């Protein structure tokens, strides 16, 4: 059974279109996994692995920001971030069940994307400066703050992670809402990269692989520099 058949069967529409490129999907699920590892290791004081998973999150967020400017069409901020009027207009269509699929993020979802990206970045940056009370696995930039300051940051790191969890909860609730109320399966396209679509609709302008690799190298160098606290 092909992707088209699976999705067509669900919605009674045949035909699919590419909507998410491979980097976006890999980054999405890698971020889910990394945040889960961060959460578990953080709560169980396994800070050695918390550091590694934190670097993974930092790398992914940097890559996502880069991809928001240099990536495929649906990944670019300029293509999905909309002003308040468009957001309001889209929000008004939420109760309706007959709205078509949006190619990529919708205007309201864009706020969710920005909020989650911003929060993840904020939590990671706080973590970089956080001081471990045992002095074993403090953040790589903790030498730039005092012990007391770094302990304060460690608590902020935890508090803002809790805010992030609520926003992630909202994101999951929205996915369930779309599935139940609008009969739009948003999960499968994030796995397969394809959504149901009528022929001749919008297409994905995929960015070349070399551009992703270039970003990956830059992000890796940045994360490495941060990890050694800029002590060269």
């Amino acid at each position, binding site marked *: 059974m092909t992707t088209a058949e699976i999705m067509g069967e669900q919605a009674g529409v045949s035909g699919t279109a590419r909507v998410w490129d491979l980097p976006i999907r890999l980054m999405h699920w890698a971020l889910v996994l990394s945040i889960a590892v961060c959460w578990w290791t*953080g*709560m169980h*004081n396994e800070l050695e692995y918390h550091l590694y998973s934190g670097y993974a999150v930092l790398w992914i967020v940097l890559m996502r920001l880069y991809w928001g400017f240099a990536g495929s069409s649906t990944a670019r901020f300029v293509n999905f971030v909309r002003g308040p009027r468009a957001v309001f207009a889209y929000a008004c269509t939420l109760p309706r069940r007959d709205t078509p699929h949006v190619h990529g993020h919708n205007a309201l979802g864009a706020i969710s994307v920005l909020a989650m990206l911003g929060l993840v970045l904020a939590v990671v940056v706080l973590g970089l400066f956080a*001081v*471990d*009370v*045992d*002095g*074993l696995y*403090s953040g790589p930039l*903790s*030498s730039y703050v*005092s*012990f*007391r300051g*770094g*302990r*304060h940051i*460690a*608590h902020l790191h*935890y508090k803002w992670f809790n805010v992030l969890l609520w926003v992630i909860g909202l994101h999951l609730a929205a996915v369930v809402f779309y599935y139940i109320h609008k009969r739009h399966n948003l999960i499968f396209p994030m796995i397969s990269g394809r959504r149901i679509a009528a022929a001749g609709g919008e297409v994905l302008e995929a960015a070349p692989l070399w551009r992703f690799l270039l970003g990956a190298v830059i992000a890796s160098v940045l994360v490495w520099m941060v990890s050694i*606290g800029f*002590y060269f």
Partner: protein
Amino acid sequence: MLFLLFRRLAGAAFVLSIASSLQAAPSNKDLIKSRQDKLRDMGGALKAIDDELKKRSQDWDNTILPNAQTLKDRSSYLLNWFPKGSGPESGVKTYALPSVWQKADDFTRLGKTMQGEVAKLAQVAASKDAGALKTQVFALGKACKACHDDYRSPDYEKENDE
């Protein structure tokens, strides 16, 4: 005569009571605050050494050795900072768990292990060998963690460290 003696005794008792109240044990609030300050000093001292070790070359005389001395001075008294009654039951905000007093033997054992690691750290610091000191900083951190894991409430249950 008897009356005079009584007055003297009463006077002496009064003076004694004033004197003893001046020397009275500090309140739990002061005690816990002082304990937190001193533990924070130790955390700060270990951090200062760790931060210095990240640099290419170390300032042994002005940074590492004084902080190693702070750790040594503080650590030798650490087990005195937890008298009975200075736990959460005192009503003062503290992150020391009741297990400190319930499993006093194990707590003491971990405290002594920490003192041993601090003594070693001071020795290694005196030898000015950065590689060996890094290893010992890690060993001491593990001793901190061993006690914190079981006897200190986890970070996420706290408002702040203050």
